[in-house]
């Protein structure tokens, strides 16, 4: 049984994601307490080792089925490597990859899994994780016993690994099971770029399910127009067909970093926060004083958006 921490590497267009670098940071801290190595597990062409400082070693598996991402191929590979190395902790990010793989790899290892992790430490030899539940309204501190565990962490929760030299690369043979998969990638689907680019705006007005009804959107649109800002939204409005996908902020939408983000009727679920937490100024209007968005916003108000938005429109003119 090793005490290694295995970090599942994700990249986009050849660049290792911020979330992965944060996992390496978390891995460094954990391995300091566990005494093992931090192993970065890279699946696909190119080891990306020069971007993986913080890892002691890069385990690199290459196989045509691993690129582009295929959930079954990745699951088989991550589980096999984790098992073979006897990894103590497997770290993944709360992305599609983490959601597909985290619980499945845990099931294959017979190990516990904690999702939406924002903190992890070793306390008296015991792995303890802190995770968001109930849409971020509560945190849970849980003991994770056993010889192996899978933690799926929310982006932005750990400091990224800093410094360190380029880790050594260890090629690892691909599992034989990759030749008999039941899942295949048919095509990549690119986002529609014909709408305004909300990532380019200095000021965004964002609206969420608190708007209640499609017809009420006119109200916030009027404010957005008066401020000369594009209207953005949370995911449920897009799923309802009320807003185009190109306006969605968050994990499965766009990441924005405007100078100011004015939000109305958005609760602040972790998936939304992931897309806007880096805005320079965040002002949130939400009638629920316990809404998690107030943990992230710089300024907040519990005014009713149906009172506040007209008051703003009136004053902007």
């Amino acid at each position: 049984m090793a005490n290694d921490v295995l970090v599942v590497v994700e990249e986009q267009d050849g660049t290792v994601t911020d979330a992965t670098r944060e996992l390496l940071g978390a891995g460094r801290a954990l391995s300091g307490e566990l005494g093992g190595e931090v192993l970065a597990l890279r699946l696909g062409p190119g080891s990306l080792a020069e971007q993986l400082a913080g890892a002691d070693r890069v385990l690199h598996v290459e196989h045509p089925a691993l690129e582009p991402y295929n959930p079954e191929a990745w699951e088989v590979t991550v589980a096999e490597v984790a098992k073979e190395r006897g990894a103590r902790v497997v770290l993944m990010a709360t992305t599609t990859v983490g959601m597909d793989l985290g619980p499945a790899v845990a099931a294959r290892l017979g190990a516990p899994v904690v999702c939406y992790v924002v903190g992890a430490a070793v306390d008296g030899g015991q792995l303890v994780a802190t995770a968001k539940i109930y849409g971020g309204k509560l945190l849970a501190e849980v003991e994770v016993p056993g010889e192996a565990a899978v933690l799926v962490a929310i982006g932005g929760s750990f400091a990224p690994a800093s410094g360190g030299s380029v880790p050594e690369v260890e090629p690892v043979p691909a599992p034989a099971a990759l030749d008999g998969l039941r899942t295949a990638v048919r095509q990549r689907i690119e986002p529609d770029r014909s709408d305004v680019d909300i990532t380019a705006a200095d000021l965004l007005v964002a609206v969420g399910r608190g708007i209640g009804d499609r017809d009420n959107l006119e109200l916030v649109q009027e404010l957005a127009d008066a401020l000369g800002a594009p209207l953005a939204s949370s995911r449920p409005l897009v799923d309802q067909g009320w807003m185009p996908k190109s306006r969605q902020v968050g994990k499965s939408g766009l990441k924005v970093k405007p100078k100011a983000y004015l939000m109305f009727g958005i609760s602040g679920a972790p998936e939304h926060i992931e897309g806007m937490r880096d805005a320079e100024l965040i002002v949130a209007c939400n009638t629920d004083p316990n809404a998690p968005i107030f943990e992230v916003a710089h300024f907040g108000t519990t005014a009713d958006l149906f009172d506040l938005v007209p008051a703003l429109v009136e004053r902007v003119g």
Partner: protein
Amino acid sequence: MRIVVPIKQVPDLVEELELLPEGTDLDRDLLTFKLNEYDDHAVEEALCLKEAAGAEVVVVGLDEPEIDQSLYTALAKGADRAVKLTGDLEGWIDTHRRVAALASWLASEPFDLVLVGVQAVDDLDGQVPALLGARLGVPHVSVVTRVEPSGDGAALVHQEYSGGLAAELEVRLPAVVGVQAARQAPRYASITRVRQAMQEGSIEEVAATGADEAAGLRVRRLFAPEASGHAEMLEGNVGEVAERILELLRTRGLLKA
């Protein structure tokens, strides 16, 4: 094609969440439960598939608060059968136990597709789609927004990634799919239709088995996020709050006038 849709009730997050004195669970007596929103999408996608290609749609839920209402609603919308798994299911049941119960029932129910909601807000130990797929030994794909049959014995699914990227995957059936959003907004069932479904009394009850496998986690405590990063709350009447907000924009040069 036979489609099974497991559905689940979750606490309504708009309400206040009160902890029990031990601090390791919510006071469930004070909560209002509603259907997990992603399950509503899973039901919708199943019904769309049924309409487009023909399918039998079976909804199944564990005997948790107000599940009957959601099962009847699914029947009213067009599901063919509703099943309730009963047994000793008090309190916060972790995902491993739920999956064990669902999986042992599924072992006796042939299926081509299991469409589950991508996640529910109330659990810690992972998402059902991946656990259920792994447990049943069938492929699974999560974060999906569209499912279509493709020729024989397979389905095409759209899986979403960050930044608006997606991919079309082909997966051999049977398979488990975690539905993030249906291809269209979930339909409504009129109260009359739901009442009608209730009068027909058509929920089948089956004793749950296998639900004794725990996740192996021990909750030390639940707590509200610490106020350290809390927003500065703008006080005053709506007019004053509006003024403050515009002032914040003005000082940053974001207001034209």
